[in-house]
């Protein structure tokens, strides 16, 4: 169980903390230059996130999809793949859940909701597997295929929603059946009507699954081996193609689940939209923030979600224009994401850089040898 404890060791925690502080300072500077009171802006942000039970609930609601797409991107990263297609997998998961949620009648909630959830998750997984298949069997770079698949997912979703379940005279699908809902009514009531659903709890379970799968199973061992060194994995008899396919599929399932809760938990309908919601791209930032570790991703999504939701407070209470709010958030994310930069600042004062030692000597002889 070394991994769990490792997260909390000093250096792992120090770098993101310094990054957040630097980001806040940089944001404060921007606000100061723009003539706004950064202290009141930050306290407004804080107040917006924790100010009322409603806000706490809605912050959690903001965090949920980010957690799922963050896990999706992070999982693929661990397996050596850059899943820029979480966006499309999210859309497809959403669409599948909507169709199952709207079209099936008369099922008890105990069957209908989980069924819609599983179908949505699998649909997202299959969408991811397409990119995985193209990569493993045809050598198509997953970044390229994922970008294409994102567009296909958007338009396919729009087409399916408009042709199958469109609410008459509206730009959105019909409401899902009550039996497919994954909202938690009593919790919403308790939190002043904030939209609460099972997403965050399933998300926590996914955090644990992410860890167990990658570090506690042989399958995960294979996926990580392929991710770090596909050549060595192949020589060691691991089915590299199959691993890539599985990685993208699992990654897609995580993203698909995010879409499932967005529709079954938050909206209860799906909108025909000109642009996808962007959670998949936010997920890349979350995975980066979290260093591709499940706990890190959880913390990253909390940070990202809180900033996103709280920024409305900066605008509303402290009168900071949204443009500046976005710059401030950008600063914080920039510093956290570029943790290498922070490490560079922190390193020189730390004596005894053990791992670097050998590198330096190697570097020396390499130069000499040519």
């Amino acid at each position, binding site marked *: 169980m070394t991994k769990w404890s490792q997260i909390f060791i000093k250096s792992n925690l120090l770098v993101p903390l310094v990054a957040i502080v630097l980001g806040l300072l940089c944001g404060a500077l921007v606000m100061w230059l723009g003539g706004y009171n950064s202290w009141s802006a930050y306290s407004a942000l804080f107040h917006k996130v924790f100010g009322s039970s409603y806000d706490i609930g809605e912050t959690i609601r*903001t965090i949920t999809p980010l957690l799922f797409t963050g896990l999706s991107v992070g999982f693929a990263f661990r397996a050596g793949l850059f899943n820029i297609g979480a966006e499309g997998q999210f859309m497809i998961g959403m669409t599948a859940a909507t169709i199952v949620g709207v079209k099936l009648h008369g099922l008890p909630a105990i069957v209908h909701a989980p069924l819609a959830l599983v179908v949505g998750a699998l649909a997202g997984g299959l969408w991811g597997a397409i990119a995985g298949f193209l990569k493993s069997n045809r050598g198509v770079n997953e970044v390229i295929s994922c970008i294409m698949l994102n567009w296909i997912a958007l338009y396919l979703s729009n087409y399916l929603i408009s042709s199958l379940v469109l609410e008459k005279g509206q730009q959105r699908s019909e409401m899902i059946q009550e039996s497919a809902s994954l909202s938690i009514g009593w919790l919403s009531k308790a939190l002043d009507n904030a939209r609460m659903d099972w997403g965050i709890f399933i998300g926590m379970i996914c955090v644990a699954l992410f860890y167990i799968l990658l570090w506690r199973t042989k399958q995960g061992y294979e996926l990580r081996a392929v991710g770090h060194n596909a050549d060595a994995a192949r020589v060691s008899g691991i089915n590299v193609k199959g691993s890539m396919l599985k990685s993208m599929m699992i990654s897609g399932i995580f993203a698909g689940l995010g879409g499932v809760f967005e529709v079954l938990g938050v909206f209860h309908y799906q909108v025909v939209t000109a*642009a996808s919601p962007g959670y998949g791209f936010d997920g*890349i930032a979350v995975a*980066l923030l979290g260093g591709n570790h499940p706990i890190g991703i959880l913390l990253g999504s909390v940070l990202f979600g809180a900033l996103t939701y709280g920024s*409305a407070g900066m605008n509303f209470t402290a009168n900071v224009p949204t443009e500046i709010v976005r710059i401030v958030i950008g600063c914080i994310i920039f510093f956290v994401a*570029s943790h290498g930069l922070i490490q560079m600042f922190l390193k020189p004062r730390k004596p005894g850089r053990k791992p670097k030692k050998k590198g330096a000597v190697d570097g020396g002889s390499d130069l000499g040898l040519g």
Partner: protein
Amino acid sequence: MKRTGMRSASLVLTLVVSLVLVLSACGKSNNNEGAASPSASSSPSESASASPSESASASPSESAAPTVDGKGKKIGMVTDLGGVNDKSFNQQAWEALEKISKDTGADVKYLESKKDADYEPNLNNFVKGGYDLTWGIGFLFADAAKKVADQNPNAKLAVIDTTVDAPNVESVTFKEHEGSFLVGVVAGLTTKTNKIGFVGGMELPVIKKFEAGFKAGVAAVNPDAVVTPNYVGDFSKPDLGKLAAATLYDAGNDIIFHAAGGSGNGVFTEAKDRFKAGNKVWVIGVDKDQSIEFGNDITLTSMMKKVDQAVYTVSQDLLSGKFQGGLANAKELGLAEGGVGLPDNNPNVSKEILDKVEEFKNKIVSGEIKVPTE
């Protein structure tokens, strides 16, 4: 050496990725023309960069409020994904609220929505903050406004472009089909090729209303003319709009009516290119008088949708204690109410045609003609 090389490579990668993320986060506000904003005009507006601080500091003393006193009252507005500077109805609505603030001394404030999920908390932000009226701009607010209104029966809300069945919500919609009918009349009488194009943003019910009214208008005066629709699939892609327009012009259409928001700008660009090359083609604008931005060389006329007027009127009603919520009081602004129609000045439309337009307008207002909506 190899190792340090890899490390710095990954550092560079991290930097690039984070930079891209930051940039894309910043760029979003411009790219995300709201899906629900079917039409966008772009009259150059001095107050385009209006910030809430400006409006908040607008001192009530200098406002001349002859009839209504809004001092101490607060009105909030939630934009859809387009944001407050969308050069379309979000901006029109906000300009109206700024005017209210100036005229009555009421406090006004807006919140922008970055995702669909933001509608509800943003509305709640105003409602729970004790605002006297909260606007939701765009028809995606239907469900969010309904929910918030039901949960807060003492709050007052108003929505544009959709109808909410709640006693504390005032709904304002427009009969876009009626206005479209009239520009259809103009197009039907102006066309020389008997081929007329329609460029839509996305195939949504709202946009279908434009198309249906337009077709009916053309058919009423020129049964031989054919209207060909061409949907772009997006409200913020001028390049696609230009392409759609080129296809229609190449097929012999000499007039295009667009209801495609930012994509519609491409229709004007294409028309301008053709005009410069010596081919006379026309565009019919939407929402605002688009000849102000794109000139009279190519703008035949525009189908105006007076969102600003509606927001102003409803806000003023509230301040003077005449707020009327509920389905029964839902406003549907058509030709009769002056909510839609042609601009006052139409230098490119002949007197005879304008007379014809006036004639049809009266028939619609009197109910003699019923304009179809789909």
